[in-house]
């Protein structure tokens, strides 16, 4: 028989023109269920007006990113046990730094447009992917393969980033990580975009993006690497004028 907890789910509610407020829903849950399961239960059995995004339920689509007890989480892989205790409260809010469409659903359009602007790829050739086995050890025959890129475009990094809170033009961690994966050597036209006020230099090293990333993309490390790429590219251009 599975363990049962009684929890209170506090859901942030905000329809167009409304001031945000919380609605509370008391429910019995299995603590090993996921936070998304609890939100879905509200929608299915208690309040059909609760609006949220979800699709795959296995951390691939990146749709269900929310703030759970003040921390950015992919709710389909975040167990209730990890976030509260029996008799406790689970506070669920929309991601920060994106316009709220309704309740927990935010408009991710700016992220997708910027990912497109830097040519972020959803699949990578195997030799370019960061995997445990170094590319140099791959058999030449294996180099034809491609794999899904790690970033699932969930936006958690942008929500957690303090710099993104104050600058609407900031490309943001996921986008800069996408540019880094592309590389300035391969895409020199990206230099102007990332070597700018709202590019790599807007990052103020809070490393919150890497702390919340559910796919271990480690955007902060990639931003630092992109800065090195910018230095290298700028320095080499001093000696190779076009």
């Amino acid at each position, binding site marked *: 028989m599975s363990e049962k907890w009684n929890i209170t789910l506090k859901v942030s509610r905000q329809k167009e023109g409304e001031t945000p407020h919380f609605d509370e829903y008391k429910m019995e849950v299995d603590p090993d269920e996921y936070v998304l399961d609890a939100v879905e239960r509200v929608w299915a059995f208690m309040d059909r007006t609760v609006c949220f995004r979800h699709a795959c339920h296995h951390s691939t689509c990146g749709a269900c990113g929310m703030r759970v*007890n003040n921390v950015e989480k992919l709710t389909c892989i975040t167990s209730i046990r990890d976030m509260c205790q029996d008799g406790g409260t689970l506070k669920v809010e929309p991601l920060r730094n994106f316009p709220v469409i309704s309740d927990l659903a935010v408009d991710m359009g700016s992220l997708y447009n910027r990912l497109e602007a830097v040519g972020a790829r959803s699949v990578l050739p195997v030799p370019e992917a960061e995997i445990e086995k170094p590319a140099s050890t791959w058999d030449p025959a294996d180099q034809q393969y491609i794999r899904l890129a790690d970033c699932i475009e969930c936006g958690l990094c942008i929500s957690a980033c303090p710099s993104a809170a104050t600058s609407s033009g900031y490309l943001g961690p996921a986008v800069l990580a996408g540019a880094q994966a592309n590389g300035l050597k391969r895409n020199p036209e990206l230099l102007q975009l990332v070597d700018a006020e709202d590019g790599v230099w807007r990052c103020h*090293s809070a490393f919150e993006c890497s702390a919340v990333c559910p796919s271990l993309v480690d955007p902060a490390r990639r931003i630092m690497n992109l800065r090195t790429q910018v230095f290298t590219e700028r320095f080499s251009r001093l000696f190779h004028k076009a």
Partner: protein
Amino acid sequence: MEKPSPDKFWTWFNPVGRETGGWAFILNRVTALGLTFYLYLHLVILSQLATGPQAYDQFVALMRNPISISAEVLVVAAGIMHGLNGIRIVLTTFGFGVTRQKQLFYGLMALALVIILFFTVRMFTA
């Protein structure tokens, strides 16, 4: 609507749900503001001292007060923490210790504590 805006600068100081890097970010901002305020205060006081020897003597007497020395210790502490935190940012920007940024922060802040203690003792016993 939760759109990014410069008006939300106060969210930089919200420690809720932050990790080590976030704490370092907040510490850098708080110490920077403190040092900027001190610089302003310093210039104001310097301009007062120019009024004559009596003003100078009065100010020196005031600065020997334990409360004044405590305030000076705070300035020294802010300068040391801000400087060492800055070194961490420079190192990670150049690709050094990026994957060990937490340990780097804790290590540098431990060093800051030792230096601050040294200065505290020196300033109160001088």
